[in-house]
């Protein structure tokens, strides 16, 4: 695969892109040894702050660090402005879509999206049909995965409308960078991200059930310390100044949710839950779940508590539904989508399926319900046997798969074992929807640390970088 990748710092003609002038100079002027020392320092800082994600069942230390790269990724102000407008447009429409699906289903009636794709989808929860949620918002916190393939080529790779994680890394990466390289910040005008928690709190408060007093009680609901994202749950609760609760701390009485406190029961109005739908309420969903709160769904349906993100929102980030997002935008707003989708072949469609089968070696094939980079076929890196086996799976259940061309993900300078080298990156900005849509200027950049690798997932050798949006 002789492909030229777009590098965000070095242009092919040898020029440095404007946004990276400062970084390029800094990298050139800084001794390799110094960078090495700084990287070690970063590791120590992350460990001491306890910023780890947990991996159980693989042996070794269950609390691992996600590798952190000390060279920031830089976006210019104009790049950000366009992206931001696109993200706001997209998440607003996704929220409209979920509301529509659980109410009048106009978009299905208009034939824009095939009905069976939604109503037979395991992410569609009939329990939510006709239920009104505060402000008609379902995905209060959305993480939209973006990739870049050229100077002006940004694509949305995936929408995460359920419980997108990673925002704590965005915040901590910035914290660590500012401790390690204060001079570098002094020379750049980097937009701050540290007001994220304030925006999040405001968003959650705005979405309290109608009739709640002026100071709604907000909590973060975590599965507990053994969850891989526990650090993030506790960090966000801390930054917002709200309680971090587990299922056992809550109970429902008369369709109202309370938490057990040292002064007796206290009413809860908004739950930022970091537990999947299926585990929320053993009375409605998985009866085996000990993580949830019995009776929570009844309280929710009665409108006495807000769950963020809403139950059933997964219908909007299903990979098969993803392919229809540009159509949704046109349908609900009449506008052209600002952000492009990656061209995607739906294997449920006969023509697309035929094309996918003929071109497996060039495509990336994904399971519609999969996540985290598992269960996908990366055509150019696969063997004939792997492709044959995968083709068999697609044939058995074509509706379960989509395919995309192998994307030429952009690269960013990254500090690796033998110095600074380009590595592929993606980007996850976070979009908050309350009374209005809010974002901080930044997001989480993930980087594939292995040379040539396009897989950025932390479970598969990916790391993270601080992401800078420069001032005007």
């Amino acid at each position, binding site marked *: 695969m002789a492909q030229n990748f777009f590098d965000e710092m070095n242009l092919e003609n040898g020029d440095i892109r404007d946004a990276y002038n400062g970084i390029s100079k800094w990298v050139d002027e800084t001794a390799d040894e110094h960078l090495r020392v700084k990287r070690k320092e970063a590791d120590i800082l992350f*460990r001491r*702050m306890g910023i780890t994600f947990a991996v159980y069942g693989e042996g070794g230390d269950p609390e691992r660090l996600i590798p952190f790269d000390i060279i920031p990724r830089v976006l210019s102000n104009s790049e950000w402005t366009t992206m931001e407008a696109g993200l706001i447009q997209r998440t607003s429409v996704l929220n409209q879509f979920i509301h529509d699906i659980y109410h009048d289903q106009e978009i299905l009636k208009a034939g824009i999206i095939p009905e069976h794709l939604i109503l037979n989808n395991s992410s569609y929860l009939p329990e939510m049909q006709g239920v009104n949620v505060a402000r008609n918002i379902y995905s209060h916190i959305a993480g939209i995965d973006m990739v870049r393939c050229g100077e002006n080529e940004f694509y949305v790779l995936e929408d995460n409308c359920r419980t997108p994680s990673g925002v704590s890394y965005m915040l901590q990466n910035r914290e660590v960078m500012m401790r390690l390289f204060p001079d570098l910040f002094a020379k750049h005008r980097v937009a701050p991200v540290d007001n994220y928690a304030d925006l999040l709190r405001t968003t959650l408060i705005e979405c309290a059930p109608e009739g709640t007093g002026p100071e709604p009680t907000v909590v973060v609901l975590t599965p507990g310390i053994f969850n891989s994202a526990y650090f993030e749950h506790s960090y966000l609760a801390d930054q917002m100044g709200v*309680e971090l609760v587990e299922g056992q*701390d809550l109970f429902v009485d008369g369709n109202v949710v309370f938490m057990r406190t*040292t*002064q007796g029961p206290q009413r809860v109005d908004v739950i930022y839950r970091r537990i999947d739908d299926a585990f929320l309420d053993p009375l409605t969903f998985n009866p085996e779940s000990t993580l949830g709160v019995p009776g929570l769904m009844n309280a929710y349906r009665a409108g006495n508590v807000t769950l963020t993100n809403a139950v059933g929102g997964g219908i909007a980030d299903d990979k098969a539904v993803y392919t229809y997002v540009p159509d949704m935008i046109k349908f609900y707003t009449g506008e052209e989508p600002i952000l492009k989708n990656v061209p995607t072949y739906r294997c449920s469609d006969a023509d697309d399926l035929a094309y996918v089968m003929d071109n497996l070696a060039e495509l990336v094939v994904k399971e519609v319900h999969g996540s985290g980079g598992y269960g996908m076929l990366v055509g150019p890196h696969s063997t004939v046997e792997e492709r044959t086996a995968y083709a068999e799976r697609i044939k058995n259940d074509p509706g379960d798969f989509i395919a995309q061309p192998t994307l030429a993900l952009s690269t960013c300078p990254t500090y690796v074992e033998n110095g600074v080298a380009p590595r592929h990156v993606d980007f996850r900005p976070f979009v908050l929807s309350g009374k209005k849509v809010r974002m901080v200027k930044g997001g989480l950049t993930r980087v594939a640390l292995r040379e040539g690798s396009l897989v950025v997932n932390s479970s598969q050798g990916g790391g993270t970088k601080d992401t800078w949006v420069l001032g005007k």
Partner: protein
Amino acid sequence: MLSRTANNLYWLSRYMERAENLARVLEVANRMSMLPNASGDGNQSEWSSALIISGCEPHFTETGQLVDADAVIEFIGRDEDNPSSIYNCLKSARENGRSVRTTLTSDMWEVLNDTWLSFDSRWSDARRYGEIRSFLDWVKERSALFRGAMYGTMLRDDAFDFARIGTYIERLDNTARILDVKYHVLLPEGENIGGGVDYYQWTTVLRAVSALGSYHYLYREDPQPWKIAELLILRPEMPRSMLSCLLSVSEHLERLGDSYGRKHTCHRLVGKMTSELKFADANEIFREGLHEFLSEFIARNNRLGEEITKSYMFTG
């Protein structure tokens, strides 16, 4: 505040305090083992008493090991199967801390986390070079650092009260045990108080609670058993004395009662225990039997702990 949070804070402090106390106990045993010894049992009694004070003698006996310096240091210091080892105390302290990270200040959390992460290297260094003292000093240092971080950075709200209550309940228990066990070790039946027992032995009791200097300052004479008992039970100015611990528990429970506008059985209990000690007389305690007095107080202290738990709905 969540009941679970209060529970975690309470236990977090108890475990930190216990780790420190275990280090003190080992330190004294280690020191004694370097001195010429009167009982002629190869210092075994020192190591046995370390096991008894830390409450893990039955468990140790089950392992079938002989009581000697090496085995006891290993058992109290690092044994993963001994729930009261320093290792497990620091581990539990951190786990409790992790569950309530939102309530801890980052200074407190970093001490807890750092302590746990460096445990293994500290321990193996100390063992490799036979310098258990440096390890024990480190444990005391970490506990002091944690206390400092707590005092210096934590909001004075109910979280602070629950954390402090845990410390004092644990400390009272420990002081009472040290006194109780030491008197048994040092005063076998029929032995007269102040009889043939070595002066150095008596000082160990004081050293175990870092009170040797205070004793000299307050009494200006050689350590005498009844005065030591008075110092460690009844003196309010001695920060590890039983009365001092109770006064502190009482103060924090009062604060909770005031801010929550509600009092419970534990308030009555602590008031009763405190006033008993306030007006007690050391000679009387001795006459009626120190051991009986101490065992009863240890039991009452446990009950106080349980009542506090019940009153504030702890779920753990």
